C-alpha cells in the first residue's frame, strides 16, 4: 500500500498543501485525521489517491510540515 493519507498538523497546512498539489495537477482531498494508533493528531490530512510519493516530495520541498503517512484502508 502506498499510505495514501498524508497527515498535517492543521487545516491551514492541509489547505496550503492542497493548493500546492493542485498546481501540480495532483488530486487530493482534505479530511479529518482518523484516530490511528501511534499517530497523535487532532488535525487534518490529505487523501492522495494517486502519485502520493510524488505529492509527498512536492509538499516537503514546499515546506509543508508532514507529521505522518498512513494507509487509508487501515483506518
Amino acid at each position, binding site marked *: 500500500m502506498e499510505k495514501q493519507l498524508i497527515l498535517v*498538523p*492543521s*487545516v*491551514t497546512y492541509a*489547505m*496550503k498543501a492542497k493548493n500546492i498539489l493542485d498546481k501540480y495537477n495532483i488530486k487530493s482531498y*482534505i479530511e*479529518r485525521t482518523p484516530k490511528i494508533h501511534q499517530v497523535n*493528531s487532532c*488535525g487534518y490530512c490529505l487523501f492522495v489517491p494517486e502519485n502520493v510519493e510524488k505529492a509527498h516530495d512536492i509538499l516537503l520541498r514546499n515546506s509543508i510540515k508532514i507529521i505522518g503517512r498512513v494507509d487509508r484502508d487501515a483506518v
Partner: protein
Amino acid sequence: MIYLDNSATTHHKPPTVISAVSDMLKHYSANPGRSGHRLSMISAQKVIECRQALSQLFNISDESKVIFTSGCTQSLNMVIKGLLKPGDHCIISDLEHNSVVRPIVKLSQYGVSYSVAKTYADDDDKTVESFRELINDKTKLIVCTHASNVFGFRLPVERICKLAHKYGVLFCLDSAQSAGVLPINISESDFDYVCCAGHKGLYGPMGVGVLIINSDILPDTLIEGGTGSESDNLNQPLFLPDRYESGTLNVPGICGLCSGVNFILNKTVDAINAKEINLIKKLHSALKNNDRVTLYSDINTCARSAPVLSFSVENMNSEAVSKYLSDKFNIATRAGLHCSYLAHKKMGTLSNGTVRISPSYFTTENDINRLIYAINKLN
C-alpha cells in the same frame, strides 16, 4: 453625513465586504479548523483565502505567517510583550500611538527600558540617525509607526529596519494607519513583525486585525488554548499560525476583511493613495489661506505623508470645532489627542488637541469642498 474620520475606522465599506460578512453568517457559520464537515471546510477555506489575499497585498510567500487577531492593538501587544524581557531595551518613535507606548510603559515597571527617538518629518536622514544614536547593547526591538495617526508624517521605516538589523535588533512595524494606503512590501523590506488593523485602510469590519511574523524569532504567547490541532499535546503548538490563534477565529470579520483586501488589490494601493493624497492637498491649499487655521505641515511634507491632516482653529478648542462641524454641517471628524500623547507633545498640541481629517477611497472632492466651506464659515 460626510465622513472624514476614516483613520479611526473606515465607515463606507465596499458592498462586497458587507455581503461577505452576511453570506458567512447566513450560509457557512461553522467553526474552521475544528471539524471535517462541509460547512467547517468552507469556513476554513474562506480563512485561508484571506491569508492568501493579505500575503499578496504585503508580498509574503507563506500565508502561515499571517495571524488573525482582534485588532492592531492586540497584534502590537503580542509582539511587544512576547519579545521584551527584564533587562531588554526598546526604541520607539516620538509619534507612536498609545497602543505601542502603553504596553512598553507597563513593561518598564518590570525591568524593560525604552527610549524615544526624535523624528523629522522633512529629513529622513536625521530621523534614522536619531534611532541609531539610541541603540545600545541591550536593545532588542524597535517598534515604529509607518505614519502618524494624527499628522500623517511618514517615517523611513525601510531604512530604520535596515539599521535595526545591522545592529542585530528586531523591527516591528505599526501599520495601523498605512496598510491599504501606503505600499508595504514585507519580503523586500524584511520587516520582522507587521501589525495591522482590519477596519481602517483595509476596509474590513471592526474586531479583526492582523499580525504578520516574518522572523524565525517567535514572541512568547500571551494566550494559550484550543487551536484544533495537536489536541493531545498540552503545550501550545509551535507552528504558525496556530501558535497565536487560540480560540475560535472571528470568521465573519475575516471574510469581510478578505473582501476589503481584494477591493484594495483591485483598485491598487497606489491609486487609493493618489486619490486620498490629492484630497488632502486640496484641503491643505485651501486651509493655508485661512488666517485662523494652523496647519502642522507644509504642502510638500503633506504630499509624501499618509492621507491624514490635522489642524487647529485660533481661540477654539479642537472638540468645539469638531462639534461645530458635526452639528452644523453633518461632517464627521475626530478631535482631541487621538490616543497619541507623544505625537501631540512633540507638536505642542497637548493643551488643545487638533481636528483630524482622514478621507477614504469613497471621499469625494465635494465632501472636501463642503468641509472647506464649513471651516471658512467659523466665527
